[in-house]
């Protein structure tokens, strides 16, 4: 008896400790604490500062209109971290009801069967393709079905330093329009001493100068609309990469490398510090310039093209999705619908992002702002990256091909042939 008591106590302690550990690890559950018949919709997001404030306003307005639904916002760190969390949650069968999501990944996740098809709910709620910029709808859909609610967007333009233009005798109100003009301006603006650049006029691949940017500017297409096959070796795309390669040769790639590999962001941005006179970048850096160098005398213009016409750009952006296996799909859709319509869009992107609805951007007065209006005006002609299950692979392969070609490691054509082959081969398994 005495002995069993002696052993019983530690065992009791043991089970208590284990119980404590288990309860500490389990989640609070999705039942609603108020218990008033409300449905709680859990949303995972990575928003901070002004974007979070805006989202809270959206939630408040939404809850007022839908008293039976309560939104529960859960912060999960941004980008890759939250993707992994979401990935695990979906695989484990316990995902949130809504998650904010980079539209770029819609194709991949939809192909994996991990997103809820929103098409019929959208049709019922009057969410239509025509309400949005074409690329935003396109990028939210996979194989003709809607899988995400587009939330915000961006676009890319040529930034140029007007003071530098004046200094070297270029007209600050006439940014380059053709590729030839761009090259001439870059040449004038560059100041090189030995191997070191004191100032560099332009680097095609710096910042947002991806091959996507130039491929489209040169009039190329990355995907065959009819077959869905990837066409990274489209002659126009090859031409674009050839131009980038020649540009690199002229200024010596290794010497330029300093800018591209170690250039900082924010106040360390070489455009802000005057070390680079022109760059391709998105509207998302405008706020940084306002903050760190409000007196920077700069302008933005469409990305130059070979002909000086048919200006274009490309856009990405955020969206909201309902993961497969979400518990409150109907209520979650209610929120997505609110988010996607004008009222939600107006609250969501105020003083921060570009809306995916043109009329909302009108309302913000973006079209009266000399800088912002350029970013908005180009949107109807903007592209989205191909929505394919292997979007990330294509992205990486294009980046790698650009690097190899510009560094003289194979010709542009050879590199892009390889990209096309690799990605199309990877896509084959989805056709089965």
């Amino acid at each position, binding site marked *: 008896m005495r*002995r069993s008591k*002696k*052993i019983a106590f*530690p*065992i009791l302690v*043991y089970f208590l*400790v*284990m119980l404590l*550990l288990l309860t500490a690890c389990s989640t609070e559950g999705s039942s609603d604490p108020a218990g008033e018949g409300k449905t709680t919709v859990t949303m995972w997001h990575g928003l901070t500062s002004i974007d979070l404030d805006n989202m809270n306003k959206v939630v408040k307005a939404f809850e007022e209109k839908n008293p039976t639904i309560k939104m529960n916002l859960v912060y999960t760190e941004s980008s*890759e971290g939250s*993707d*992994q969390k979401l*990935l*695990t949650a*979906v*695989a484990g069968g316990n995902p949130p009801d809504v998650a904010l999501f980079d539209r770029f990944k819609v194709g*991949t*996740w939809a192909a*994996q*069967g*991990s997103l809820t098809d929103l098409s019929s709910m959208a049709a019922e709620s009057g969410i239509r393709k025509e309400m949005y910029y074409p690329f935003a709808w396109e990028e939210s859909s996979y194989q003709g079905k809607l899988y995400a609610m587009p939330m915000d967007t961006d676009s890319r333009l040529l930034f140029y330093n007007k003071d530098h233009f004046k200094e070297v005798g270029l007209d600050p109100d006439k940014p380059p329009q053709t590729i030839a003009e761009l090259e001439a301006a870059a040449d004038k603006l560059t100041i090189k001493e*030995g*191997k*070191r*650049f004191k100032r560099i006029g332009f680097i095609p691949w710096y910042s947002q100068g991806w091959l996507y940017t130039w491929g489209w500017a040169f009039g190329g297409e990355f995907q065959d609309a009819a077959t869905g096959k990837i066409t990274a070796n489209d002659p126009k795309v090859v031409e674009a990469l050839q131009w980038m390669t020649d540009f690199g040769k002229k200024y010596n790639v*290794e*010497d330029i*490398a*300093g*800018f*591209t*590999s*170690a250039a*900082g962001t924010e106040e360390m941005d070489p455009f802000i510090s005057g070390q680079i006179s022109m760059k391709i970048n998105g509207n998302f850096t405008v706020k940084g310039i306002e903050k760190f160098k409000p007196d920077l005398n700069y302008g933005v213009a469409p990305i130059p093209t070979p002909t000086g016409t048919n200006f274009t750009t490309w856009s990405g952006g955020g969206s909201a999705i309902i993961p497969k296996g979400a518990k409150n799909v109907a209520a979650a859709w209610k929120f997505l619908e609110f988010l996607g319509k004008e009222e939600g869009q107006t609250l969501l992107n105020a003083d921060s992002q570009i809306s995916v609805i043109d009329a909302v951007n009108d309302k913000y007065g973006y079209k009266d702002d000399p800088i912002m209006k350029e970013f908005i005006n180009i949107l109807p002609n903007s592209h989205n990256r191909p929505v394919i299950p*292997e979007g*990330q*692979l294509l992205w*990486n392969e294009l*980046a*790698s091909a650009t*690097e*190899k070609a510009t*560094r003289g*490691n194979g010709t542009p054509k050879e590199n892009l042939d390889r990209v096309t082959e690799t990605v199309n081969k990877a896509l084959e*398994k989805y056709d089965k």
Partner: protein
Amino acid sequence: MAKLADSVQVSAIPSARKRALHRTNVIGWLFASPWAIGLLCFYAIPMLMSIYFSFTTYSILQPGEFVGMNNYRDLFQDPLFWKSIYNTIYFTVFFVPLSIFFGVALAMMLNMKVKGMAVFRTIFFLPTLVPQVALAVLWMWLLHPNFGLVNGMLAHIGIDGPSWLGGEAWSKPSLILMSLWGIGQAVVIYLAGLGDIPDEYYEAAQIDGANWFQKTRKVTLPLLTPVIFYNLVMGMIGAFQQFTLPYTLTKGQGTPANSMTFYVMYLYENGFRYFKMGYASAMAWILFIIVMALTGIIFITSKRWVHYQGK
């Protein structure tokens, strides 16, 4: 000796005490069980699962189908797989010996009886406290080709510095340089090893008329070999798993021209960005086999060069 003593003791214990001992064993295991269960659930089972997954097209989100050796066959035809192996071995081959050389040298310097030594020891240990991500950002600026401190200093003595992280030729050496900066952890272990060497050996050597160099070669280094052995094995395993620094430096892209795509980075890319978890599992097992084989080789050769005191 110790083992023998234990068994003698156990057999001498009367049976009542034996039972008491058995009971405390049970209780001991119970208290250790959270760890044991954790090890089983979060290490052993996932490891075994990953063997299976390496033969499938598992994508995390979908179970995938059994494809036999396809993943392994594809890997051997994947140029980036070979490139990542090359990069990883390059890094290991240079970093590990250098880290041992500088680690031992530094430890010997920090073992001298000089005033204020604690300050120096702290200085060399401090960098290991800096998180890898912060370290990467810091070095990105130090090594900036045009405005960085390193090239600035080189310029003063008339050397035109390379573009460091910007070029294929210098990106990996730069990484090795950065990694050597965090050597402090190993130095602490070497210092402990040095402290373990009895003074009598040095006194005896002194009497025999040995100079500093002879003392180092005949006394210090042989008696430090168990510690060097430990750091060699751990350093090699660590070097093969190089991830955070190059990932942060290149924003996960392995630039320039994949010269910074390390094995585990490519594994991560396949698993979590391309959803090819089966492929990534196969990579993990190849890495496991490589590291096991190399560790085995080091263990076998260690009999020749590792000297334990008292043997």
